[in-house]
């Protein structure tokens, strides 16, 4: 049974220096209510793992603007000039990762794997300092698994067990992140009684979800 709590109550689990995965793709499928609560609480020195840093006024960008992020691991930062400013001023560390690699690193973190072998990034700066593994004559980069203290995800609908249904392109990184963190908080639009979501329609089993927050 996932516990239904308020966004402010959820912040008891989000503390300074935490490693936080946040779902969403350019502020689509991002838990905006939880991000607002993080800004309100003023947690600092966060390591944020996410697809991108959103926009200055939407999505993960709000945390960047409030200078709460010490390190950002992301695939794209071009839509939020503030991220580039803080990176150039060296007040925030930014690690850029190919999108498919980040998805697999998080999946591996949740799946009990040490990492994945990918051809993506070979011969580029992404490969610097990483092990190259040859399999059947073909080279791959070893990309290590990624985990977090907490995952803040967004879904469309939950039942009381925490089973989740995502909607359209709002799914993106959310399901993988829910498997790769110690504590998982899902912001949802609707919570329905257990049994109302057909097991075949569940996109993420509730066993991964600790808390539900109505967004």
């Amino acid at each position, binding site marked *: 049974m996932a516990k239904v709590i308020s966004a402010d109550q959820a912040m008891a689990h989000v503390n300074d220096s935490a490693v936080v995965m946040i779902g969403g793709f350019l502020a689509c499928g991002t838990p905006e209510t939880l991000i607002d609560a993080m800004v309100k609480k003023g947690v600092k020195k966060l390591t944020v793992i996410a697809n991108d840093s959103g926009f200055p006024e939407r999505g993960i960008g709000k945390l960047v603007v409030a200078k709460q992020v010490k390190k950002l691991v992301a695939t794209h930062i071009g839509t939020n000039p503030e991220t580039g400013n803080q990176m150039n001023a060296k007040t925030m560390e930014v690690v850029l990762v190919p*999108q498919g690699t980040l998805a*697999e690193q998080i999946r591996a973190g949740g799946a009990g794997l040490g990492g994945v072998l990918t051809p993506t990034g070979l011969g580029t700066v992404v490969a610097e300092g990483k092990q190259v593994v040859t399999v059947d004559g073909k080279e791959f980069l070893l990309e290590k698994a990624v985990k977090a203290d907490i995952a803040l995800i967004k879904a469309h609908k939950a039942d009381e067990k925490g089973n989740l249904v995502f909607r359209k392109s709002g799914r993106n990184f959310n399901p*993988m992140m829910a498997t790769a963190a110690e504590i998982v908080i899902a912001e949802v639009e609707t919570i329905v009684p257990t049994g109302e979501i057909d097991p075949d329609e569940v996109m993420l089993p509730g066993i991964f979800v600790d808390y539900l927050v109505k967004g």
Partner: protein
Amino acid sequence: MDNRTLIAKRVAQEFKDGDIVNLGIGIPTLAANHLPEGINITLQSENGFVGLGPVEEVDPDLTNAGGQPAGILPGGATFDSALSFVIIRGGHVDATVLGALEVDQEGNLANWMVPGKIVPGMGGAMDLVVGAKRVIVAMEHAGKGGSKKILKKCTLPLTAVNVVDLIVTNLCVFEVTSKGLVLTELAPGVTVETVRENTDADFTVSPNCQEMKIS
């Protein structure tokens, strides 16, 4: 006809009926508007769906990979980012079309950062060019101020090594072969000399070099 439309129309001739295609932002996206009669393709959007189509109504849960409102055509399907890159990296995309900052005669591509100036991040580009069966670069032949973009060797950080199959510009079409660039088509009114003046890379002229057929 403006350069962008010319390039988009020529790129559209590369698709086969039934192809799964991923189009980058800008000129590549325009190619979908100029498909030859009888050619139907399925567009993949790396943020998590196939069947990308025109916007019917703005839905906050449905954007394209640039974060703009999008539509899904009947028969489309949504999925998470890991599956999206199973499709992309796993060789299930028939063609990807992208812009470039630089491309060279070995098929190397640079399109994700200019050190010290713009660092938007690679997003899904590194995975796309490694995984897609066919990689088409679509861009204006010359850069700002007439700078050359088709080089002997890329100078900017690479997106990937030896991945480009075809270069389509407002001046010409180059095929990238194991023996270097081969000029196969010239835009109406363009001479080999004009291409040479605007190209740093070495290239040979195909004996079958012809004028682009653009209606």
